[in-house]
């Protein structure tokens, strides 16, 4: 009997890209230094698929995004690599306005199948522009979908779903998970956008989180396990968001903490507060707690380690409820 196969996150991503490019000749990759390549998930792809399908652009994020948008209008399925998700801001109008509005504003007649990839979160420790997690901003703009995996398994399945989706989808991945290992089956599978995943079952309090923070939340859950039974839900997809899964959990736990590495103000966690207020107010025994990145630009140095949500902060916020 063989061991279940383990892959690193970037290997899982590379498998997703390879399979989707193998399966559809209209799918291609475009980005800065992706042949070289900056991140190992594109390593070898230009050799395998040729330079026509693995395109290095000038340092020109606006043009990069615009080019992908045009190609998608013509029916190709570009996968844009922004390298760092923060570089998306250089193409703010193309991503947040043009791509987001395209389908709807033109009468909902034509799809815009663009996938975007970018890393984010504390991991390189080089501060704001390399670390910002823009899911809050992305999800605010109707027309975009946004997801982020916490495991290699989810990374592969979500990225494949993103590429097959007929809408602009931003696939975020957390820099701190680049080399994280996890089981990835040999057989093909998808992780649908809009499906959360209960990463740990529990009955006293629900912690909703995503990305690297799933790891922190699970660890915090373990630490309090003797006293408190914590359910940890991995959102996986911010838009569409799996509200039914969350509400079902709240029926059991009646308490919610949202752990999010994005900025607290008007971010994902705020939206969850509002949604639960609207759809699950009677389920709540206590106000929803937010454990987020404080409302300050992401610092680097030795500071980011404690400004982002930590196991200790999560644990404290769980204990406070009991």
């Amino acid at each position, binding site marked *: 009997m063989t061991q279940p196969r383990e892959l690193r996150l970037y290997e899982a991503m590379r498998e997703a890209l390879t399979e989707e490019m193998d399966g559809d000749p209209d799918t*291609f990759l475009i980005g800065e230094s992706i042949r070289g390549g900056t991140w190992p998930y594109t390593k070898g792809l230009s050799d395998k698929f040729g330079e*026509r399908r693995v*395109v290095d*652009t*000038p340092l*020109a994020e*606006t*043009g*990069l*995004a*615009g*080019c*992908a*948008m*045009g*190609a*998608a*209008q*013509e*029916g*190709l399925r*570009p996968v844009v690599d922004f390298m760092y998700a923060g570089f998306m801001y250089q193409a703010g*109008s*193309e991503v947040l*306005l*043009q791509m987001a509005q*395209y*389908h*709807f*504003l*033109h*009468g*909902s*007649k*034509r*799809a*815009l199948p663009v996938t975007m990839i970018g890393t984010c979160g504390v991991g390189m420790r080089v501060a704001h522009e390399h670390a910002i997690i823009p899911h809050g901003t992305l999800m605010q703009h*109707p*027309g975009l*979908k946004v997801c982020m995996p916490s495991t290699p398994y989810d990374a592969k399945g979500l990225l494949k779903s993103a590429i097959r*989706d*007929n*809408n602009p989808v931003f696939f975020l991945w957390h820099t701190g998970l680049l080399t994280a290992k996890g089981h990835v089956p040999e057989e093909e599978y998808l992780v649908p956008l809009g499906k959360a995943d209960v990463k740990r079952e529990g009955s006293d309090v629900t912690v909703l989180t995503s990305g690297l923070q799933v790891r922190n939340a699970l660890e915090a859950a373990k630490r309090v396990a003797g006293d408190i039974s914590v359910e940890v839900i991995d959102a996986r997809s911010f838009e569409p968001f799996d509200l039914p899964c969350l509400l079902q959990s709240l029926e059991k736990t009646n308490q919610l903490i949202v752990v999010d590495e994005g900025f607290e103000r008007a971010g994902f966690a705020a939206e969850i507060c509002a949604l639960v207020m609207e759809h699950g107010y009677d389920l709540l025994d206590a106000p929803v707690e937010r454990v987020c990145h404080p409302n300050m630009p992401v610092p680097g140095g030795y500071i980011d380690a404690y400004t982002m949500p930590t196991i200790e902060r999560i644990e404290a916020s769980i204990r406070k409820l009991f």
Partner: protein
Amino acid sequence: MDNEQKTLLLNNLIRAMAFDRMMLRAIYSGSMVGFYHEGGIALAPGVAAASFLREDDFLAPHYRAHGLAHMIAKGIDVTSYVAEHMGRAAGCCAGRSSSHYFYPESRVYGSSANIGANLVTSVGYGYAAIYKNTDQVVMACTGDGAYGEGRAHEALLMAANWKLPMVFWCENNGMSQYSPIEDIFPKANCSDLAAGYGIPAKVVDGQDLIACGEAALEAIAHARRGDGPIFIECMTLRAQEHAVGGLNNAGSKARDPELMAKWKAERDPLERAKAALIDEGVIDGARFDSMNEAAGAEAERALESAKASEKAMPAVDELMATVYADA
């Protein structure tokens, strides 16, 4: 250029200008939503850009006259675009956009209100053409103002780098909104930029329809041959306000009305093309009059048909179900 091509150009200009006048009347009479950016005597370049494209060539119209000149010249029936301006369900964008065009079957893939945005999507069309190894051409039209935008640079750079089959077609009317080009651009010609990318460039008199047509034929052939991008700049005029409708002109300084009148009297591209073609014996006065009449009627029909259609006012829930594809 043969006589048939010249006649095609002339007829397309007649039609474009008839639609432009019709749109202006409609916006003034209040039957349209939003604003309109009159083409006036600046429509020869747009007509020339698109009259000789194949149906499968890509077209990104310049927004002036809302791209009507370009689309009409490409052979598109723009009735549903007129309806779009009137917020009708029959509008090409289902009445949601006010002034976005959308004729995917003719490879006019929609628009953006952001000046210069069409240059970068055009790069994507060009890349798609080489990706699929077709011989399609991309006609990417803008005004002079667009060449202020950083994305113009990124588009030129990518086009040159990948030798894309693109025509950068600049309709330089010397104005960007309320700014004369001298105030905001260091050189008189946008096409001066092209050499820096190794892109060949040419400046044409934009009031000379036939010259614009010649330039378009050459440029399209250049791109179709696989010789990479080319830059054509047509020097034209804005003999009127930037826009009408909306609240747009409340703060604007008036430009010299006498100069505008003089331009209209002396530099109308249609008068010039008409005279030249009659002179050369390509058409006669009667033919011109009948084309003119037909164009007027065509524009009127488009307006009437748009007016007769239903206002788009779908329920919010219905709209919400269409924000995403495959929802």
